[in-house]
């Protein structure tokens, strides 16, 4: 896998297409593994997508007593392995982003696996494929760096910089997640 997931929060339109598409992914059993939140509905329509960060040293895997959370050679952090998961829910408490969820019926944890069946062939995950505003993208590392640079420049050109008084009008505008 040569590509990375790139999130640009400001673009999110809150359509939750990514969630609908996540349910469509091969073995997700019609449960979404990513989330969309409002920053503050009272103030604005700003939403942001929340995906698994695929951490290099994932807290969910570190706190798993059964070693049920595997990391692929490409760096993708997978869902708990069914035969190993003991249902202790440590991972759901350990993750700082609130990504792993617990399926009480199947008694196991499920989380985003970056559509591993797609991404290992360099096909975009379902969420990034469908995202209508390109708030979630599956792109080359170089493209991500160029995008970040350009976005920073544009913000400077437009004089966009949060001040103390209006800092809540702004959410982080980009966020790169990658595995190398």
């Amino acid at each position, binding site marked *: 896998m040569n590509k990375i997931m790139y999130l640009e929060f400001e*673009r999110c339109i809150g*359509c939750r297409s990514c969630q609908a598409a996540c349910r*469509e992914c*091969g073995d997700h059993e019609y449960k979404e593994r990513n989330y969309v939140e409002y920053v503050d509905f*009272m103030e604005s329509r700003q939403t942001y997508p929340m995906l698994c960060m695929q951490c290099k040293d994932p807290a969910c895997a570190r706190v798993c007593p059964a070693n049920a959370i595997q990391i692929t050679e490409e760096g993708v952090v997978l869902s708990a392995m069914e035969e190993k998961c003991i249902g202790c829910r440590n991972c759901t408490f350990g993750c700082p982003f609130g990504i792993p969820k617990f399926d009480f019926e199947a008694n196991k944890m499920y989380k985003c696996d970056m559509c591993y*069946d797609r991404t290992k062939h360099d096909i975009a995950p379902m969420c990034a494929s469908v995202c209508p*505003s390109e708030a979630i993208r599956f792109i080359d590392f170089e493209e991500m760096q160029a995008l970040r640079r350009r976005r920073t420049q544009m913000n400077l050109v437009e004089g966009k910089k949060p001040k103390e008084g209006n800092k809540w009008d702004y959410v982080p505008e980009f966020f790169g997640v990658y595995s190398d």
Partner: protein
Amino acid sequence: MTQQFVTKEWVKNLHKPGEKLITTHCCYCGMQCGMHLRVEEKTGKVVGVEPRYDWPVTNGKMCPKGVTAYQTVEHKERILRPLIKKNGKFVESSWEEALDLIAEKFQGLQQQYGKDAVSVFGGVSMTNEKCYLVGKYARAVLGTRFIDYNGRFCMSSAAGGFLKTLGTDRGSTLPWPELEHTDCFFIAGSNTAECHPTSIQWLWKAKDKGAKMIVADPRETPTARIADVHLDLKPGTDSALANGIMHILIKEGYVDEDYVANRCNNYEELKVAVEKFTPEYTAKITGIEVGKIIKAAHIYGRSPRSVMMFARGAEQQSKGVDNVSLYTSMALLRGQIGKFASGVATFTGQANGQGGREHGQKSDLLPGYRKITDPEAVKYISELWGMDPSDMPKPGVSAFELFDEIHAGNIRAMHVMCSNPAVSAPDTEYVWSAFRKLDFMVVSDFFLSETAEFADVILPAATWAEDDGTTTNLEGRVIRIRKVREPLGESLPDWGIMQAIAKRLGKGQFFPYQEAREIFEEFRVATKGGKADYYGITWERIDKEDGVFWPCPSEDHPGTPTMFKEKFGTPDGKANLAAVTWKEPGETPTKDYPHILTTGRVVFHYLSGSQTRRTEFLMEQCPLPYAEIHPELASQYNLRTGDQVKLTTPRSHMTLEVRLTKAIRNDTVFVPYHWGKELAVNQLTNPCLDPTSRMPEFKVCAVKIEKV
């Protein structure tokens, strides 16, 4: 697991073993996003969706409705056999019994009350082939003048405005991928991000290059949120805003004088009309700050390439045609129509909102945008259909007026196809009582919609995935919908249903088709020489060229992606600038009804919600309608988020949950309209019609708020 890929140039799709991918388009809005449906080879069942990365308009993007659209095909609530109402309950019957009953009733009523006693209410979620046949079915088979369609609630003001100013009604004068190179978007009355989400990628692509966005909307929608200037106008004041902007364009020398002199009429009249719309006067009417109006005009005036876009917010008003004409005139003043990456565009709400309105479902139109009052057109179409020109019915009335005709006793039976007016028409209680008054009512649908519940006979229609055909997307690009599986149960495609009724009425000669393709061949000829000329478009060309833009008069014609490059569709080839002043909406706030109610969509639902309310994911996201209210307004009534509120208009009242947000004007309440019966906000809306387009005023009415 072995993997296979469908490859077109650089594009890879995941292709699972035991499944085939069938290339088609979404069934919902006018974007018509490209998609592949995943079909199990063994069972033929539709099991999922795969993005279509090589479709140039949407690049694989889909909204949540598109992602879940396939779920309606195999849905357990599908109507699979004809149903006849016996003692107030629907009972399954055979096709024979249902058709016998329809023939007996239709013929009986027509003998007793004349041909016009039977009416047809069409819809534009159908393919071009089917929309074309609805007109033929009404006029050649039933011989009635009472035919109209649900596009009156959606597109007709845009059509009226375009015809008035540009002479031809094509929703967009430019192809969508060109939007990437635009410098400025002026979006009026469109919540693009929620209603046409896959368009947003083009706006962002342009924005990344430095394009500016101006959004006129009473709410700070997800679209308005990313605008450089958000013009938070009072609902119903679009024409004042457009006049105000044009006033500044003229005063400050932003008008493309050469373009206007060579290609437009009426400039002097326009100058006079906008004279009084100074920024201050405009601000007084619209409620927008003066500075914002001036800033917007400067941005629009200084942009070398701009696109003027609008949608239902500006159109669903009793002055909708004026609004569209004025916004179009704004683009004309800047000389923006007929150039690369610039122009005007309206966002089509329904799947085939463009194609469906050109081919004879409107009460006054014949296929190819021919006027039914034009004897030449009547002669041409009658000859093609094999009927006597003198048998061609006269023009009828518009969709909402059909209900007046029912109340007046002139219409005794109705066949509703692919439409749900019991939810989508304004003042729904009036519509419901009209349905109850009918002697006989037939509905073709694949779900038991709110309208179908009034019917005497329901005929099971096939879904979009069960038939071939073409649609015309919001750009004017004619594209192909593919049959993915055989119709479920005993359902038939709409053309098959009309064919069966025609045969039973002894008019089978008008419907000699074996498959959808034969209809398309006849339809091409029917449109030949008309304004919306599809003659040069073939299914092979559509596949090869990623869709073909009409007008396309011959097979060697490349199609027309950019409209009006040299001349406009008017008789003298010049555009007519609109010189109209602002007029009050049909209903304004009073002491009894002190606030404004406006309606709209949410991203999770489509039109009357008949399909999306049956889709699990979409219902989970938005199960019920709600009332969006500004905290300042809410504080007058001591309301908080989650409280119940009673909204009352001169027509009716309903109770809704409150959601407080600062992202709306503090004199306006917003309610989404996708629910039926007691949850239908259209119980409250005003059926005041636009004088030209006969579009009801869904977007503005006066309302009273009470805490429950």
